């Protein structure tokens, strides 16, 4: 007996494919949105390089340094304001001396100060 060439699997596949439905046009965007909602990107949190305590300690150290410089300065016969300021100026002049010798050091110190200031500014802004 001749065997039928009818391909049942093919017929059923075609038949089922004809009945297939399509999901909504926004299916992909809905999935993407839901994934983003469930797994949001981690928010960037600024962590200051120098903590608040460190800033207080540094300020305290700076005040101590000034006080030390003032106390070590020689006595002058100038007015009361000059009496206090002259040693500070001379101390600053002393500090400037090595900087003028090596501009590379000056650039490094300037950059560090700038970064510290920036760090302080960002920290303050974040608090606000």
């Amino acid at each position, binding site marked *: 007996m001749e065997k039928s060439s009818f391909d049942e699997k093919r*017929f*059923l596949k075609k038949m*089922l494919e*004809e*009945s297939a*439905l399509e*999901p909504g046009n926004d299916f*992909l965007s809905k999935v*993407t949105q*839901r994934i983003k909602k469930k797994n949001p990107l981690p928010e960037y949190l600024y962590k200051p390089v120098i903590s608040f305590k460190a800033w207080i300690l540094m300020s305290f150290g700076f005040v101590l340094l000034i006080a030390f410089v003032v106390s070590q300065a020689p006595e002058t016969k100038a007015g009361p304001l000059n009496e206090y300021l002259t040693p500070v100026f001379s101390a600053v002049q002393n500090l400037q001396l090595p900087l003028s010798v090596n501009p590379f050091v000056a650039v490094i110190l300037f950059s560090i100060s700038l970064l510290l200031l920036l760090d302080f500014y960002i920290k303050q802004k974040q608090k606000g």
Partner: protein
Amino acid sequence: MNLLNDETFVIKAKAGDETAYAFLVNRYKSQAFNLAYRILRNREDAEEVAQDAFIKVYEKLHQFRSESKFSTWLYRIVYNTSISKTRIKKLDYIEIQNEDGEEVNFEAVSYDFDRLAAAERKIYISKSLESLPEDESFIISLYYMEDCSTEEIADITSLSISNVKVKLFRARKKLHTELTLLLKNEVKTLL
């Protein structure tokens, strides 16, 4: 061979490439939606379940070891999510011995079917598929539409291969009976 194989996109998606995952969603959205629809029989629910399945897949992507095909893994998640949604029982194991071994032939059905307009055909197929139990409708779709082997279907549904074969046989038989009946009625109306 599929040039843009799933494996490549899975690796990229695992590495955090969202576009690669979007590609996989686009590739399988219709299949996932239709399979969910076979169980839920409601468009809105099927769409929601298919979306849920894709989100679960994304979350568990790092667990996927490529031991099975990506599609098999996805269909298993679609199946489990659909079952959870309907709260119906998982596919039951059946007594194979009780099955009637009589084969069905779709050849006559196909001749009548070809004479129908596309829209009518769609209605009849939908009607006959809805007459099947959800699990059989799901299995028959996996086998004929998605070209899954009985082994893959067994993996997806957690049934034994012999149970899958019996369920497929039953589904084909019911589908044949339903289609024959519907087409007979169609002829009667025409007459």
